[in-house]
């Protein structure tokens, strides 16, 4: 991990802490490994409970260092915990991995959130792959969110299978997929087809899927997905019809464009750019 990231995080901490809070953090970071780990646990007892403030330059600097990495909306405790983790000396790999694993093993929910949020800045990124896919299996909403949303780690390190699980579970949990980093980059045909199966199950149960999920389908249009598009165009929900228009427009398949042409108003707003996926991001 780069020293620049450590400094970037510290600059944000300084802006959001009192002098005594910052001093406590620096003291603990400079002490033994066990003291540092206890500080990770005890942080809420010494830091105020608030959401941090961050200016645009700082956000830009973080992004320049690790694309997609953001601390926006974090609590001060989470930020401090992530910073403390960057202070663990990684030079002895065995010790480093053991200490991080101990923190995972003994973590409560907010600690888990901090640990998963820290994955992009930890050393030995491959070491945390099992933990990261395990978080996708978590039924604790905040833990799942910490790995799935606004986190650049999965895009960079997940296999296709693990990636597809992450996206599907986000949809299954009715959470907005546009918060997933790398959603477009890692779109794939298997995911599009699984999405179709999933939507059929939902429709059979008289339930629905959020319209924006069809952004995963456009580039992989085939006869099955075309039939889904027809289903969406026939929907009473205006968002479904918009999603069908956008997905058809994303496709390079001629039949998709013939289908879209049947819905003149929608075709016009898609082609003119008046309608975009961003309009369905809710």
């Amino acid at each position, binding site marked *: 991990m780069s020293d620049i990231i450590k400094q970037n995080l510290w600059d944000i901490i300084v802006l959001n802490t009192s002098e005594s809070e910052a001093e406590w953090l620096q003291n603990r970071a400079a002490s033994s490994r066990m003291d540092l*780990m206890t500080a990770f646990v005890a942080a809420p007892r010494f830091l105020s409970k608030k959401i941090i403030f961050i200016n645009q330059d700082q956000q830009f600097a973080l992004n320049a260092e690790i694309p997609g990495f953001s601390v926006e909306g974090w609590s001060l405790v989470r930020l401090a915990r992530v910073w403390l983790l960057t202070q663990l000396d990684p030079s002895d790999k065995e010790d480093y991995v053991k200490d991080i694993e101990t923190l995972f093993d003994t*973590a*409560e929910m907010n600690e888990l959130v901090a640990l998963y949020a820290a994955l992009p800045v930890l050393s030995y990124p491959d070491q945390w792959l099992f933990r990261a896919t395990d978080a996708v299996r978590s039924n*604790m909403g905040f833990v799942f969110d910490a790995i799935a949303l606004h986190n650049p780690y999965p895009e960079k390190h997940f296999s296709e299978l693990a990636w597809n699980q992450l996206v599907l579970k986000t949809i299954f949990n009715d*959470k907005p997929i546009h918060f997933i980093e790398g959603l477009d980059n890692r779109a794939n045909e298997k995911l599009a087809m699984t999405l179709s199966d999933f939507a059929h199950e939902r429709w059979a149960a008289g339930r629905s899927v959020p319209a924006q999920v069809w952004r995963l389908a456009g580039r992989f249009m085939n006869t099955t997905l075309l039939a889904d598009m027809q289903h969406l165009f026939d929907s009473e929900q205006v968002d479904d019809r918009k999603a069908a228009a956008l997905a058809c427009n994303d496709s390079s398949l001629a039949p998709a464009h013939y289908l879209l042409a049947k819905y003149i108003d929608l075709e016009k707003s898609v082609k003119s750019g008046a309608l975009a996926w961003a309009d369905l991001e809710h």
Partner: protein
Amino acid sequence: MCLNTNDIAPNPSHFEDSEETATPAHRDIAWNDYKDLIKGMRFFDPHIHMVSRTTDDYQAMHQAGIVALIEPAFWVGQPRTGLSSFKDYYSSLVGWERFRSSQFGIKHYCTMGLNSREANNEPLAEQVMEILPLYIYKEGVVGVGEIGFDDQTPAEEKYYRLQLELAKKAKLPVQIHTPHRDKKKGTERSMAIALEHGIDPSWVIVDHNNEETVKSVLDKGFWAAFTIYPFTKMGNERMVKVVEQYGPERIMVNSAADWGISDPLAIPKTAALMKMRGISDETIRLVTYQNAIDAFGKSGQIDVTDFESGYAIDHTEKFHGNSILRGGQQPVPAKDSLVIN
């Protein structure tokens, strides 16, 4: 749990009282007819083992006005054979159980400790003491507990003392489990040792009191908690009499509901009974809510704004603050309906 407490049960509850004969005094007072008496009241259960309870219990507790609870670390019935099962248990108290509780609109705190029964497994107890510091500093840990005596062995005393020191260092209240057998002596001994370690009695909650122990506990300046537990411990009619006699100061009620035949609604039911017997609303509030908050609040870990107006359970609300998603709280099913949707 065995109802005849004179039998040696093969798997007794963690505080079954073998010296007391079960004399359930049944009255035909239906809870449903009286729950309106406590409408609008808020309750805090400072001792309940939710790992052993169902989602039905959580929903009933929420409906009855319980807004927050404390889950003390205890013996789960099945003896633990290694450190990992202690770790998993402690982690569940601050992790999964806390989350599960929040899904039902109840704020969940816990106390952390090595229970007296398992303190007797010394090689394991030794290992547990090494990891305990990582747990007691966690958010929402409001005390070291439940610790104290069971069989009153030397090993129990050793780990009780070590944990008192831990509590002192971490500036945390202590929740003392008093023994089932030889209770009076065990209670006195627990208090004497706490004082010997220089612990301020106003930081110690002595649990599972009865008519025989309460006076001494209060006189020495400790908090006196009473467990309303069918058949083997305090009945709530006896509890009403205790409150009539001693008043509300430093007294609190809990359910200690666990895997045994116990009642997670013990507090609201006791409150309704107190109301029926003419005890003032303020006294009821103190013994079923405020005193527990004052005692365990010394940990600095209880912020009443988290629960005093109840957790908002809005199943349609997805966002909370800055794009932090809510966990998706559990919808309440229509239990009277034959059709399951």
